[in-house]
Structures are given as structure tokens and as C-alpha cells.
């Protein structure tokens, strides 16, 4: 993963997991079904209008509330390439890395608006607003998380251990 370009969908502070995927749809874990209702109560019509590669940008404490992994699953299956927020709730942060949804912390998300085009350079940790050509730096991904990403997520990492007969 090096660079992505996508359009911004902007949300506010404290976007909770009930907004990302309402519990009324948790009677399934099918990613495509969940994607149909992604962000439904925050912005109706999101799932129909979001394009592959688009980027969710939000304020502080994104993903607060429930531990439901359906939340990052729904976002990823909706085609969103990355979530950028000032901060993330801890279970969401963990889940996103575990299941391979790229997320970045950036303190300056107030500057970014719906519809603007961003180029995100993951290796450099730089977000560029292509209209204004303004660049924003992101908080570096902790080394352990980078290892998890490199392994292809937590389960791939575990699967290697299982194959080697070390557990399970």
C-alpha cells in the first residue's frame, strides 16, 4: 500500500458504531449486506453514492461505542479506502487493523470538506488536498501495527502459527 486518491465524505466528532452500522442490521455478518446500510443514520443515501476509493474524514473519537467488527467491515465493503480522523475509539482502532481497513490519525481534519480530492501517501504519512495543494502530516502508525498490516492482518499472523503446529 503506497498511495491512494479519493473523494472526501466528511463527518463530525464522536461518530459511533451505531451510526456506522445500526444494530438493527446486525442479524447478519455478510459484508455486502452490511455495506448497504453503512452510515445510514448519519447520512442517508451514503451507501448508494459512495464510490470505490472514497475516503471518510471525521473529527475526534471516530468509532466510539460498540465493539462490533461489523463497523469496519461495512466501511470496507462499501468501498471506502481509508478513514482519516483526529482520533479513534480504541476498539475500532484495533478492529480496523485486525481486519485490514487503513486508518490514519490527523489533527487537522477540520480543514477537509466533503467532495474534495485527497491523495494519501501511506509510506510518507502525508495527506494532500489536491485542490488547495495543502499537505497534512498524519500520526505515524505504531511499529507493531505496521507488522500486523504487513502480515495481512491478525488472523493471517495466527494462521501461520496454526500451520506450524504451534497452537490450535
Amino acid at each position: 500500500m503506497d498511495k491512494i486518491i479519493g473523494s472526501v465524505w466528511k463527518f463530525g466528532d464522536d461518530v459511533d458504531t451505531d451510526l456506522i452500522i445500526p444494530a438493527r442490521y446486525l442479524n447478519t455478518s455478510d459484508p455486502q449486506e452490511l455495506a448497504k446500510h453503512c452510515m445510514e443514520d448519519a447520512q442517508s443515501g451514503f451507501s448508494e453514492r459512495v464510490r470505490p476509493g472514497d475516503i471518510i474524514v471525521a473529527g475526534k473519537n471516530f468509532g466510539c461505542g460498540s465493539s462490533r467488527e461489523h463497523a469496519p467491515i461495512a466501511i470496507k465493503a462499501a468501498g471506502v479506502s481509508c478513514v482519516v480522523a483526529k482520533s479513534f475509539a480504541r476498539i475500532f482502532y484495533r478492529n480496523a487493523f485486525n481486519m485490514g481497513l487503513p486508518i490514519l490519525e490527523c489533527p487537522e481534519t477540520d480543514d477537509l470538506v466533503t467532495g474534495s480530492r485527497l491523495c494519501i501517501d501511506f509510506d510518507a504519512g502525508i495527506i494532500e488536498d489536491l485542490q488547495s495543494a495543502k499537505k497534512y502530516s498524519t500520526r505515524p502508525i505504531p511499529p507493531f501495527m505496521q507488522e500486523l498490516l504487513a502480515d495481512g492482518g491478525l488472523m493471517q499472523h495466527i494462521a501461520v502459527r496454526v500451520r506450524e503446529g504451534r497452537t490450535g
Partner: protein
Amino acid sequence: MPMTITEKILAAHADREQVEPGELINARIDVALGNDITAPIAIDAFRKSGAVSVFDRDKVVLVSDHFVPNKDIRSAMQVKLVRKFAREQGLTHYYEGGQMGIEHALLPEKGIVLPGDLVIGADSHTCTYGGLGAFATGVGSTDLAAAMITGEVWLKVPESMRILFHGKRGPWVEGKDLILYLIGEIGVDGALYKALEFEGEVIEELSMAGRLTMANMAIEAGAKNGIVAPDKTTRAYVSGRAQRVYQFYKSDAEARYSAVIDYDVGKIDPQVAFPHLPENTRSVKEAGNIPIDQVVIGSCTNGRIEDLRSAAAVLAGKKAAADVRLIVIPATPGVYRQAMAEGLFDVFLDAGAVISPPTCGPCLGGHMGILAQGERAVATTNRNFVGRMGHPESEVYLANPSVAAASAVLGRIGSPEELR
């Protein structure tokens, strides 16, 4: 070097003398928990990994409590999948039907989680067990899958915040009000990634039910865990329930905290959290005239016998207002039986309540009490997010059981004081 109770439990489970905030550790798990919503994803990941058996059939606990009794075909399929896995793996602790209670009320009641344990659960309110003096935190389904296979979890050692409560609780002020007040003060991300350690004379006098309520909502401040040092109240609660050895830990006097906050509870009124965040708290006295359509008394936060007693004490001899649907949900079969034996069901039925079987049900907008567009509920639950209990244009107000009961009678948000 001095350590907090959280650091001590983490160190012990990582076979370390010492851990420090910020360190990443691999820790042994005493209990790994999943439910009918989160376990299906974990079971799928478990199978895809090629794993054959769980690391310990006594330590993987599955509870089908969210959308049960099965609310629709899809929910029934999910529960069936969880049940099949539990049977195939020979799990000691799988709960469904008449054995099932809301997980975070059931596990302490049955002595499955104990002081000093390290518990992870694919449910954000797993932090409840901190009330017993355990380290317990919510994770996602993938973490649960990995834990079911390896018996281990990777954790970053959190910084701890020390929250002291001193003074004397006023009438109708319960554990729920202390935690709501705290969340109102520090905000829904006020303890992000941190351990919340509850201490002080007020906590020492608090029942186990009150402590579990407080730890339960630590996640509502963004915390990794909430914790209360175990004491004689804890010992009285776990003796007779525990089937294995457990350990009491407590923070060293010189342990380091990222913050120390001290509250005089004499100044804290019963609290109400207004829509749509648990931090939107105010005194029930300042609620204003807000008519309501429904009251829910139950959940992993406030569905224990002590909570039902508080509600019944307010409801005795009274009726819910004509247009208020009052729903009472005993959290476990044990709570249900006890409430029945104490005659609380007569009080609830006389008040016009519906008594539900144990279920998470309406708390997360699953079933058994969904709100229509424009409707308002007072609930003893833990979240009042947009659409949490039903229609995206409905509203949930969080309160303790006695305030919820009084509100049912008044037909608007109000205090038990107003019924005297």
C-alpha cells in the same frame, strides 16, 4: 517500581515482574467471551485459520443474549451457528434459552469471571468485570478468534486515571449517577485508551451491583477498562460462586497516574444523560418537562436484583402513566427468580409493566421495545446514540432505575422525590 492494579494484573498475565504504560505485551487470558452477534464472525475466522480446537474449553464462553429469544430468521441462523460451534468444541460455558442471562450480569453471578482475572470479550461492555477487580476489556471478533485459538491477546498497557469519590451519597444517587456524572465531566473520550480506577470511601460502601454498573460504563468515556480494588464486599460476592482460585490485587501507594480527580458526591444529584451522547448529562432536577413514551429498566448496566429493587421501591402502589410503556428486563434467570420470590413482579405488573425474559433486546434497538419516529424513552441502559433504541429520530435518556421508575409514573422525566 510501584504499579497500579491494572498494571499488576497485566504483568502477572504476561509473566513479567513489571510493566509500564505504553508497553505492548502478549498476555494470557482467563476468559474469552463472545455473543450471538460477535461470535459468528469470530467462528468464521477461527475456521478459516485452519484451527481445530479452542485453547481451553473452560475458558471460551459464549452467550446468545442479544437478539434472543430469536427475533427473526437471520438471528436464529446466527444463534444456531454459535450453538453448533459451542457443542462441537464441547464448551463448558454456553448459555441460551432458560439458562441464558445478559452476559455481563451472568458471568459474575455464576463465578465465571473472578478478581484478578484477565478477560477479553467481543462486546464493548466486557469492562463490567472491573467491578470485581479483574482486568477486562472489549475487543472485536477477530481478536476473539485469535484468543480462542491461542489463549493470548496483545495489549498495550494503558495509563491509569485515578477517580476518587468522597462524601455522602444523597437519596436516589446510585453507582449509575456517579459514572454518568464522571462521563459528563470528562467526556466520551475523556479516558480514551486509559484505565479508569474508581476509589474512595463512596466506592468502598458501594454494593457489587453498583461497582459493576460503574465499570460497565467505563467504555462510555473511551476507557480500555474500569476497575475497583477488591475488598470485603468483593469477597462476600465471590465466595460461594468461585469454582477456581482467584487473586486480589491493589494499587501501590506510589503508583503513577496520568490524572487524579476527586469528586464530592454530596454535590452529585441523580443524573440524566440527554440525547445523543452519554456525556450530555444534567441533574434530574434540571431535566425540564420532557414527556416520554417508554421506560426500559434492565440491561448489563442496570438489570441486577438491586436495580429491580430500586425500581420496585419507587413503583410500589403506583401505576405507570397511561401513555408510557414500562418494560422491565431481569438480566439473568437468577435475577428473574429472585425478583419473583421477593414479590417484585407483583409490583411491576400492578404498575402496568411488561416483564421481559432476559435479553439485550431494546438496549441496542434489537427487539422487545423498539421506538417509533419521534418517540422518547428513559432507559437504565448505557448508550443514547442516534437510533440506538429504534427509529433514527427517536430519543433515549439514560438514568438510574429509581429515576426511570419515577419517570414512568410521571409520564415525563422526573425524580422519585416528586412522588413522595
